């Protein structure tokens, strides 16, 4: 330990797994199929270092497969790193897999003894805790029934109660707070807070940033086998959420681009193309989203105009999807018109993810003249002060003839999220004064 105040010190650990395509375990297979034993090396951890202070609660997060669970398994000493060292100070209890080693034929009470013994508790220590464990699990009437008669919820409750009542110095938790019903979950979180308050060090792996925020003081974001960011929970979480959203956006854009290509290939082929544009609208919008819209694409309308791209940018023109309340939000669209378009209007609708129509604005209501246009065209609209409150929003684009008949309608062309630090509620921020 470099620092005696630390409970955990992880120094530059790496881990590579061999992924066998056809793994032979027997000697014969090992000897005969040397050539067939191909494997890919997959480096899960590429040098992770972090420290956890005594009594601190730390959240580990990251995408699936980023190595956070592997890290936790190494902290638990189920696995060992290839290089690097892990130093831990204190008694460790891990809630990686609840109820491992439960014996279905034995009663709940007997299983408490067996399960608690796998945490290194002696009989005397278990005797002291057994009432707390049973009380916490709320399984008073069932505790002497065989565990195989338990529902899965009861099973998890019992397992969690045992694991959490081991007075450990360091508690390692992996993605297991989805235990039981809502009340029990709340109870678990409260218990964790209590444990934390009593000075236990906690390392929590979770996909739920809310959970991490409610329990942890600090977050560590592991990305592709390295620590990408660590620090105050809220800050790191926001970065992480932002990144995840940009990934999703990217995937969405790629899908959009692919579809655009497809539809570009079929433009001018009459009814076939238009039927495709209908299905496209459906897949881009969330299910049921169109029910609230008055602009239904009419099947006979041809896809004369294509949305080539739609990005949301911030005040400095960089692509961004997470904003805080009151920031400037700009929508930039690239359009392509197959034929000459004239006498038209452009309408933009701002819709919240739960299909609440928030705001609609058009070139005609702003009395902006639209020039005739063919080929590429860029369109930009800026909201210098986005006053919508916390939530996920998207834009729908509607281009219509001056008589109101639809030329093209695209739902959900771009989305963004608003975050805020204040606890105001509702839909929109209204400037106000108190006296």
């Amino acid at each position: 330990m470099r620092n005696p105040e630390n409970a955990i010190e992880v120094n530059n650990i790496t881990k590579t797994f061999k992924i066998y395509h056809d793994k032979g375990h027997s000697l014969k297979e090992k000897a005969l199929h040397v050539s067939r034993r191909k494997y890919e090396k997959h480096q899960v951890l590429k040098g992770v270092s972090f420290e956890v202070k005594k009594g601190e609660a730390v959240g580990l997060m990251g995408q699936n497969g980023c190595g956070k669970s592997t890290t936790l398994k190494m902290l638990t000493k189920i696995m060992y790193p290839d290089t690097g060292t892990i130093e831990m100070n204190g008694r460790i209890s891990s809630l990686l897999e609840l109820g491992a080693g439960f014996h279905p034929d034995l009663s709940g009470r007997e299983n408490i003894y067996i399960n608690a013994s796998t945490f290194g508790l002696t009989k005397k220590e278990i005797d002291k805790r057994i009432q707390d464990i049973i009380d916490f699990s709320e399984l008073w009437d069932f505790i002497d029934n065989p565990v195989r008669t338990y529902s899965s919820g009861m099973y998890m409750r019992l397992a969690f109660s045992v694991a959490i009542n081991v007075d450990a110095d360091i508690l390692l938790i992996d993605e297991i707070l989805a235990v039981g019903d809502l009340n029990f979950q709340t109870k678990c979180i409260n218990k964790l807070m209590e444990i934390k308050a009593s000075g236990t060090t906690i390392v929590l792996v979770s996909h739920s940033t809310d959970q991490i925020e409610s329990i942890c003081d600090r977050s560590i974001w592991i990305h592709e086998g390295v620590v990408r960011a660590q620090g105050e929970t809220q800050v790191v979480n926001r970065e992480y959420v932002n990144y995840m959203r940009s990934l999703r956006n990217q995937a969405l854009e790629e899908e959009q681009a692919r579809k655009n290509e497809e539809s570009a290939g079929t433009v001018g082929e009459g009814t076939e193309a238009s039927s495709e544009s209908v299905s496209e609208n459906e897949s881009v919008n969330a299910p049921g989203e169109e029910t609230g819209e008055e602009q239904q694409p009419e099947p006979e309308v041809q896809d004369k105009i294509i949305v080539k791209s739609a990005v949301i940018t911030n005040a400095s023109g960089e692509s961004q999807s997470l904003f805080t309340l009151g920031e400037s939000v700009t929508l930039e669209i690239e359009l392509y018109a197959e034929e000459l378009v004239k006498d038209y209007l452009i309408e933009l609708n701002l819709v919240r993810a739960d299909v609440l129509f928030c705001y609609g604005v058009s070139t005609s209501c702003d009395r902006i003249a639209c020039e005739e246009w063919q080929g590429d065209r860029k369109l930009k609209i800026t909201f210098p002060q986005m006053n919508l409150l916390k939530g996920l929003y998207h834009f729908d684009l509607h281009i219509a003839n001056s008589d109101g008949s639809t030329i093209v309608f695209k739902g959900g062309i771009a989305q963004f999220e608003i975050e805020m630090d204040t606890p105001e509620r509702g839909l929109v921020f209204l400037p106000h004064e108190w006296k």
Partner: protein
Amino acid sequence: MKLFGELWQYREMILSLVKRDLKSRYKGSVLGFFWMFLNPLLQLCVYTVVFSTIMRMGIDKFYLFLFVALVPWMFFSTCLSSGTTVVMGQQDMVKKIYFPREVLPLAFTISQFVNMLLSFVIIFVVVFVSGIKLDPLSLLYLPLIMIIEFVLSLGIVLLASSLTVYFRDLEHILSIISMAWMYLTPIIYPVEMVPENLLKFFYLNPMTPITIAYRDILYYGKAPHVKTLISAALLGILVLVVGEILFSRLQRKFAEEL
């Protein structure tokens, strides 16, 4: 030393594994726990019939001569052949929770050892019935030789259980080896029958001095030779140390290999 401390901390787990193993072994059978006594008794009957009436060896009370060596051998051979399943059989726990992995071989060996102790109840009954006089002083050596055999068997279980995770064939190989090993140990024949020039190889077999010691105490009614005890103890400790060194190396990748 750290390992001992940790194993002591996990004593409750070891105890509950032993209990579970003993309980579940005869669970559901009509005679239940009785099989622990019945099993060696019936085996004794078979050997008595075969070796006293068909294959006469010309040894006085051959059934007893055989039995006092066979019971300890069965303990050892079960450790050798079933020891392979000790870690593999608890995959779930090994992959999912932490505990010192030595708990598993230790618990298995203890439960087999308890089994042997219960069989010794039968041995004493038979010895009493047969009218052989035992020397009370040399009986004091019995616990010692049992402990030595326990140490040896634990070492074997450590080796077998950890190696099997990497080479699954070991299970089958060891059941053959176990049979051969039995015939290379003076169990159904006295060690005096072994040709002089092969004798030194026989003493490399850790089960040879152990078997001789058991027989000295329980059949001949005399204290085992100090040389026998020392060579048994040294070989046992050697196997245990090698077993633990290998086990502690191999256990690091158990979770990945299983």
